[in-house]
């Protein structure tokens, strides 16, 4: 950790809040959407190869 800011509590507070907000509002939602989208994409590609999903009644 850079020693120039570690003792500065105002800078540290600012940094922690920025990190918290970037993580919860941008990074994690983007990751969640990417995971779900990636899952959907993999399913789609498997349907292209194996044909549309089948259901038995």
């Amino acid at each position: 950790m850079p020693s120039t800011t570690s003792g500065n509590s105002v800078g540290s507070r600012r940094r922690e809040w920025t990190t918290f907000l970037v993580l919860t509002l941008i990074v994690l939602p983007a990751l969640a959407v990417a995971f779900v989208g990636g899952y959907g994409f993999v399913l789609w590609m498997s349907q292209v190869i194996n044909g549309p999903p089948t259901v038995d009644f």
Partner: protein
Amino acid sequence: MSIKSLILSFWDTLRTPPATISLGVISIGGFITGIIFWGGFNTALEVTNTEKFCISCHEMADNVYLELQETVHWSNRTGVRATCPDCHVPHEWDNKIARKMQASKEVWGKVFGTINTREKFLEKREELARHEWARLEANNSLECRNCHDYDSMDWDAMSDEAVFYMQPAAERNVGCIECHKGIAHHLPEREPGTSHIIAQLDGRAASSLKGGEDYFAYKPVKIYENSDMSTPAGTLNLAAKIEVTQASGDMVEFTMTAWRKNKGYGRVLYDDFGMNTRVAVLERETAQDEEIVTAGTPQMDDNTGLDWSEVKLSLWAPKSGFVADPSQLWEVAEASYAESCSGCHAQPDPDHFSTNAWPALFSGMVGFTNMDPIEQELVLTYLQNHSSDHSDAH
């Protein structure tokens, strides 16, 4: 500050216990943003699953949406109606997500104007329809069955005709789409020249026609009295057998042996004595020209009291449109017959009926299928050529 050091400082802060934010604020903040995200995600899924969203593209609003409005799925006595996603988006979560990803293709099509005019849409309609049919055939019409259920059908409330077709389908648990293609949007229209059957047969066409060999028409072939195509002589039907005598450029001279009824102008030629399997229709002048058409001694058909004569004719045809082996035709016809007719009932063996019985039976049923005119003619010709008259079994 470079991007790398920015990310490093972000990472350093992440892996260090917070000094200025309380654990309560972090937990509650994470919890609340989680709830908001989850709600937002589902709202986005739902918004993109509404008809309003679907018809926000004119491609949908001006084509399929208008067609839906003519159908029972739009307006009916119960007041229940189907919206786009009811039928076209899987309701089960995984497949729904896969479909949403698939929609990226639709966004691509929107951006690049793949079907931005009615003409482009009509051209693509068959391809698009086949995707949906394949999906519904694979999942046994799941999206239809989200509302419709064989077990809930009240046979007494149905017309006799409806029961006649629906009950056997219910017994065999046939998927709805097998019989009900085109129930919510127009069926693809096919020009005779764009038939997918012809496209299959084009690949099997004889590449060169040799003198002395027999060939069989796989599509309607225009024939002429001379090699320069100046005098039309008529049209060969599917499976018409010709014997090539000589080739000249893109044309061949051929002879043909057939039968005609000695009634009227004798324009229609048949495969064999007393058999209503059409092989050619001649122009009136050609049919009357004794230099082209030579007729044998008339024989009376006891069933109809009509006189039939064997005729031999010599005419010209273009080189394209023939196969060397009729089994090429029958393979394609057999597959088409099985596919189109087995959806609603077990299709009878071709040799279950006679050559002359097939045309009436076939025309009574073909309206339930999506066969184009060429396909209809091919399948009927196949049935007539494999009827009880051509079989030892009956």
